[in-house]
């Protein structure tokens, strides 16, 4: 029995090393002199910040960080507001064609992005939205999946509360944002985390619609830095840029770890 326990924990620890050690290694590698990076061990002969200094000197990574915050923040706010509105209507209001509408929304969620991505780019060109925030934000402002999650959660809100609010003369928007939202922390966090993380990590769409360095989001800028020759094949600099890109998500994951795992498991969608 004891042997079995040891084997069990041994395997679990092995898994931890397998999934976490590469990141630990990466953090230390960004602090090593370039020559010492290709080593399995962590501790260098001396620590250096030169790779980070070079990243900040070569690319506008601070600006890209702000761009990413603006883009992901606007998309998340929009998805929370509009998806909860639709989710509220579809779960708590009666109107003709409601069920059909819900089926249609489920159907629209099945459309593969490969089908629309080229014509959507063409639309951005026609609207003169390329190289603007609009192209980065507006196409991502709605989420059928968010509607689905809100609708499901709102079905559990007691009818008596809504009735009482209506007697007090509140309209539907007031009921949603003043009465229902404060009761809906779990679903707001779930949709918020999923949306923010997906748009933070999105890189294909920014690569398509943005060419100006000062409008690039963080993953896009780091991608172009790493593959475009600006890093001059210096590993330390690339890894430092990659670490800066990962940092905000890692910090958020450290704080909301349980929510991250549960949101993504409940959604079964990945970024």
């Amino acid at each position, binding site marked *: 029995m004891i042997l079995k326990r040891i084997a069990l924990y041994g395997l679990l620890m092995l898994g931890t090393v397998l*999934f976490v050690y590469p990141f630990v290694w990466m953090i230390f590698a960004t602090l090593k002199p370039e020559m010492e990076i290709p080593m399995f061990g962590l501790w260098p002969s001396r620590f250096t910040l030169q790779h980070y200094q070079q990243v900040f000197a070569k690319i506008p990574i601070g600006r890209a960080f702000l761009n990413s915050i603006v883009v992901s923040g606007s998309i998340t706010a929009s998805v929370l507001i*509009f998806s909860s509105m639709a989710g509220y*209507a579809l779960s708590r*209001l009666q*109107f003709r064609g409601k069920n059909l509408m819900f089926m249609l929304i489920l159907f629209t969620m099945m459309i593969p992005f490969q089908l629309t991505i*080229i014509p959507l780019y063409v639309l951005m060109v026609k609207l003169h939205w390329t190289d603007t925030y609009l192209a980065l934000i507006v196409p991502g402002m709605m989420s059928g999946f968010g509607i689905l999650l809100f609708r499901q959660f709102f079905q559990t809100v007691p009818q008596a509360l809504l009735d009482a609010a209506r007697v007090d003369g509140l309209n539907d928007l007031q009921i*949603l944002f003043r009465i229902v939202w404060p009761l809906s922390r779990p679903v707001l966090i779930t949709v918020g985390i999923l949306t923010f993380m997906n748009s933070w990590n999105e890189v294909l769409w920014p690569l398509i619609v943005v060419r100006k360095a000062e409008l690039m989001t963080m993953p896009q800028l780091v991608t172009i830095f790493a593959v475009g020759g600006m890093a001059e094949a210096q590993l330390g600099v690339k890894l430092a840029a990659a670490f800066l*890109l990962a940092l905000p998500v*890692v910090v958020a994951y450290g704080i909301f770890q349980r929510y991250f795992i549960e949101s993504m498991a409940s959604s079964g969608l990945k970024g």
Partner: protein
Amino acid sequence: MKVKSKNPAGYGLVAPYWIHFALFMAYPLIFSLILVFHKWDVYTPMQWVGLGNFIRLFKDDLFFQSLLNTLLFLVIHIPLQLVVALLFAVLLNEKIRARGFFRAAYFMPVVISGVVISILWQQLYSQENGVLNLLLTHIGLPKVPWLTSPEWAMPSIALMATWKNVGLYIVLFLAGLQTIPGYLYEAADIDGASAWQKFRSVTLPMLNPTVLLVMILSTIGGFSLFIEPYMLTGGGPMNRTLSAMLYIYKQAFYFNRMGYAATLGFFFALLILGVVLVQRKIVEQEPE
């Protein structure tokens, strides 16, 4: 007081979704139907080519190569993912301390951008200085040309993608395992079943729905494969890691062939829908 039976507010609250849908989904969908019959470089006027794009597609060896590459990725990625995820989920389902810690550790690569993962693994996979080859040499094995040989490159990318995504599937399997009622195992114990027999005849059949969910999700994910080959190999060596999405991207944005790229996207999307529908059919046929 009851909610009014016909509430116009309902339409108002759902309207933003549909307006957005009309502009950024329906319009591009309709426009793509026009685009597939044209040759267009965005800068000069569109040129009608009839079925030219489709004829070109069926003669395009490189596109079929990219479909095959994507298929090879899936064939390695999906079984590997299922086995590894199931193994760790079963381990985590034992009575252990610190389950939350282990679960969080395995899940870590899932939340991190594919861009970060690609830069990290480019070092790990490096032929001369990569940590993986250093380890292999250390234990007396020959170096592996992870990303530089046509045979190894796509399997290497599939291995990396599995490492990145498997945490999500561990969590899904763990949730599936926890729904299996304990009395099934008790009944198997009474029949004198071994641990392996219990796994084969109780655990696996009960996990069937999760297995299929994992298959569908990794299929959709695999069909979207883009940033990893874009960063690690650029589609090479010898186009062996050129994924379908990367090929469409190159046609559109390296060569400005919007009509042809839209045609490829159209065909590829139909293929994805077909595969997913077939998988769904299989799900529905499952007993339970």
